[in-house]
């Protein structure tokens, strides 16, 4: 590689870093002051792109940039003041769920407004050509982008250090309670910070247009990139975000230049995993101050009462009879529900009682699915053996990843699980020879004796119910008691001889193993696997199921999984904008029923008494 091409790749990396930094800076500002992890940040970026395309036809490209950014900022202010303001006292996960609902709604709004096709953005007038750098052509617009990153960092720095507003924001980021006690108007502050963050997101999106088209898929892709940048840089540190954006964009640029373009999907997550293990609070972050005030109180996780058990058994019996009545589509749907119920229960096992919030649980579902597919197709193992062995692969993955994950907690733990899931996903996406790459694997069918829909349904019913029963049993074993104890009070747990980290590692592995069972069952029921089965969206689906059902209840994840699977299916078939509909359902539930579906029973009981 010549010195010239190294320089050009370096410049290319700088150009890529700018937009990434803008987006990450917005996310970081919002988190710093409001403590909300804004999943919808990528959606704001996407809106910025589409709006800029639309506006540039009216006012021209250069005017479209600020106009789109301002429009997104206005939307941000609206979201904060109408929705998020009601949730500041809610548990972290519920806030996350609400912002995820926004992702769904905004995605479908864009679909409705601009259609499913990618929209090519305009060239930047006056910067459409290339300039020559040491004899090599380099896009003029990229030079402009290179300047934008430091310019915005400088502008933000001036805003934060030279204005009263910025001083107040820095004060609130450090100690918002004290800032409030000094008379800082929190409503105004939170709304304006959210608007600024949205502005940066919108601008970051609009600026990318000459380099890439506006597409619907950008939302989750960008938000996970931005998470990585913010976490690598250190939550709440703008210079950290800048350094991290540079680091990641440069490493990606050189991966491409050196012919390892496949690595680009995973390299940022490798960097993040490395940074979090070496410096748990990011490159320039500091250990978060312990939260003030008591954590949300969890009700006891009672063993199912005889009545509930009887109900569940009746349900089980009823389900077992279904194939006698129909072998049609209902059976397929019920099979899916059972598979996802097991997936949700395994996620609940660690995120509820063990208190380890995983954003990457789909990795283990996917490992189980791919394990089964690879064993069956590539090695030619019989279906029974594949089904039995695949979950062990998922458990092994969880054993490995879990060792790192249980060393962290809270949002950092969540991000690390996300990173590992993304690594697993990109391996599946790219290893054509083994995983079939983006096409996945097809032709994974069960053994002849299970070939009928009814027989396979009975198998799934038996295995899923047995697995769920085992997990529930474990929650009410000494092991489960110790997990809940370590979550409730690490201090007291340590003082009575509980090795919390070892227990949590074991729980993480067990949850991975059981998610792997669900994955393997899924593979054989569909006959195919695609990388989708371990993508971020699948992990989020799992979280939505658990939270919909109620993370504090034992049976909640079952109802959450059933409802979500049914909703997805029913809406996706009859309605183009099913995502938005699900988003609205989630928002309504978050606002009206913060304890999830599982809390409905208790709520009705209390009202009946009153």
């Amino acid at each position, binding site marked *: 590689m010549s010195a010239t091409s190294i320089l050009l790749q370096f410049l290319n990396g700088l150009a890529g870093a700018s937009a990434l930094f803008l987006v990450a800076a917005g996310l970081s500002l919002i988190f710093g002051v409001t403590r909300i992890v804004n999943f919808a940040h990528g959606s704001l970026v996407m809106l910025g792109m589409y709006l800029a395309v639309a506006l540039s036809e009216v006012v021209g490209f250069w005017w479209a940039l600020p106009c789109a950014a301002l429009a997104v900022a206005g939307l941000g202010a609206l979201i904060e003041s109408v929705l998020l303001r009601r949730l500041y006292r809610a548990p972290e996960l519920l806030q996350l769920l609400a912002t995820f609902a926004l992702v769904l709604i905004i995605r479908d709004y864009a679909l409705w407004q601009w259609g499913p096709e990618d929209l090519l953005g305009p060239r930047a007038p006056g910067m459409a050509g290339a300039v020559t750098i040491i004899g090599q052509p380099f896009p003029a617009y990229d030079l402009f982008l290179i300047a934008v990153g430091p310019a915005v960092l400088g502008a933000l720095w001036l805003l934060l250090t030279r204005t009263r507003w910025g001083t107040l924001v820095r004060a609130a980021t450090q100690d918002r309670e004290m800032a409030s006690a000094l008379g800082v108007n929190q409503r105004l502050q939170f709304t304006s910070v959210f608007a600024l963050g949205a502005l940066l997101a919108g601008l970051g999106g609009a600026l990318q247009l000459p380099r890439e088209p506006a597409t619907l898929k950008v939302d989750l892709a960008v938000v996970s990139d931005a998470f990585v940048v913010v976490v690598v840089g250190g939550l709440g540190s703008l210079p950290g975000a800048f350094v991290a954006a540079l680091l990641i964009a440069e490493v990606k640029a050189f991966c491409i230049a050196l012919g390892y373009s496949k690595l680009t999907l995973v390299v940022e997550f490798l960097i993040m995993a490395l940074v979090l293990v070496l410096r748990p609070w990011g490159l320039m972050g500091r250990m978060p101050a312990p939260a003030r005030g008591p954590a949300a109180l969890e009700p006891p996780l009672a063993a199912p009462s005889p009545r509930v058990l009887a109900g569940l058994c009746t349900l089980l019996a009823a389900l077992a009879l279904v194939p006698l009545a129909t072998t049609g589509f209902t059976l397929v749907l019920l099979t899916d529900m059972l598979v996802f119920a097991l997936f949700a229960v395994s996620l609940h096992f660690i995120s509820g009682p063990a208190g380890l919030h995983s954003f990457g649980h789909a990795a283990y579902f996917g490992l189980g699915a791919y394990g089964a597919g690879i064993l069956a197709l590539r090695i030619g193992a019989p279906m029974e053996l594949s089904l039995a062995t695949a979950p062990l692969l998922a458990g092994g993955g969880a054993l490995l990843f879990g060792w790192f994950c249980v060393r962290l907690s809270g949002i950092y733990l969540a991000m690390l699980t996300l990173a590992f899931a993304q690594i697993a996903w990109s391996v599946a996406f790219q290893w054509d020879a083994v995983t079939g790459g983006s096409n996945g694997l097809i032709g994974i069918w069960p053994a002849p004796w299970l070939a009928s829909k009814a027989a396979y349904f009975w198998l799934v019913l038996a295995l899923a119910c047995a697995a769920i029963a085992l997990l529930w049993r474990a929650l009410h074993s000494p092991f489960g008691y110790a997990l809940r104890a370590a*979550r*409730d*009070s690490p201090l007291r747990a340590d003082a009575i001889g509980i090795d919390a980290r070892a227990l949590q590692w074991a729980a993480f592995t067990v949850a991975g193993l059981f998610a792997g069972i669900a994955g393997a069952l899924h593979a054989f029921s569909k006959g195919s696997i695609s990388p989708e089965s371990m993508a971020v969206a699948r992990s989020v689906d799992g979280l939505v199921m658990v939270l919909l059902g109620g993370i504090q209840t034992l049976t909640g994840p079952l109802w959450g999984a059933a409802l979500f699977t049914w909703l997805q299916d029913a809406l996706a078939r009859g309605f183009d904008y099913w995502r938005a509909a699900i988003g609205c359902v989630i928002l309504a539930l978050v606002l009206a029923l913060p304890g999830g579906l599982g809390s409905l029973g208790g709520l009705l009981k209390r009202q009946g008494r009153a």
Partner: protein
Amino acid sequence: MSVLQVSGLSKSFGGVHAVRNVSFAVVAGELLAMIGPNGAGKSTCFNLINGQLTPDAGRVLLEGRSITGLPPRAIWRLGVGRTFQVTATFASMTVRENVQVALLSHARRLPSPFAQAPRLQVAQADALLAQAGMLDQADRPAAVLAYGDLKRLELAIALANRPRLLLMDEPTAGMACGERAALMRLTASLARASAIAVLFTEHDMDTVFTHADRVIVLAGGERIAEGAPAKVRADPRVREAYLGTEALDA
């Protein structure tokens, strides 16, 4: 023989001596109160004894055996129970489950994932709860207990490993007057009955002088007095230190 023997204990943080050359002992069945103004080093002392901190110098002996520098989990297994200033219990579990976890940990049964925990150690847990006067609330979630009851639950948890030594950090803080006396009487009777040595810190002087057998006074990380309550109470240095005025000028 003393249950706890502390000699020459020192710890400093960034050049500030939090605890300097402190020595004392507690015998079985005795309640020793540790008092002193804020920042006198009481909490540091506790954390040094139960292993949350490692001393810079000095030794901690439990029944003649050195526990200096061991991690809290190991020290707990050797028979040191602890209650915290701000109660630390398992809020999402019932009162009985709280004690069961401690008992199961003591019996080294925690790793078993299939045993039916609700049926294990029930009799032992109920016996401890009865001792602490909490049996009638055994099935309530810890999260809804009154504060005084939480303190009693902590006591029951702390007794689960049949401790030789009980460390109680401000056992009566946050309680109403009547509750304070009741808790301390309970502690004293348990200590006498099971020959447990009790070391506690306390800011309520009525509690200290009514219930402690002996008192040790720390100020600025050093021991400035030790002895029977009446003697300590009359000590002019103690009065100065506790008011905190002359001590600052000294």
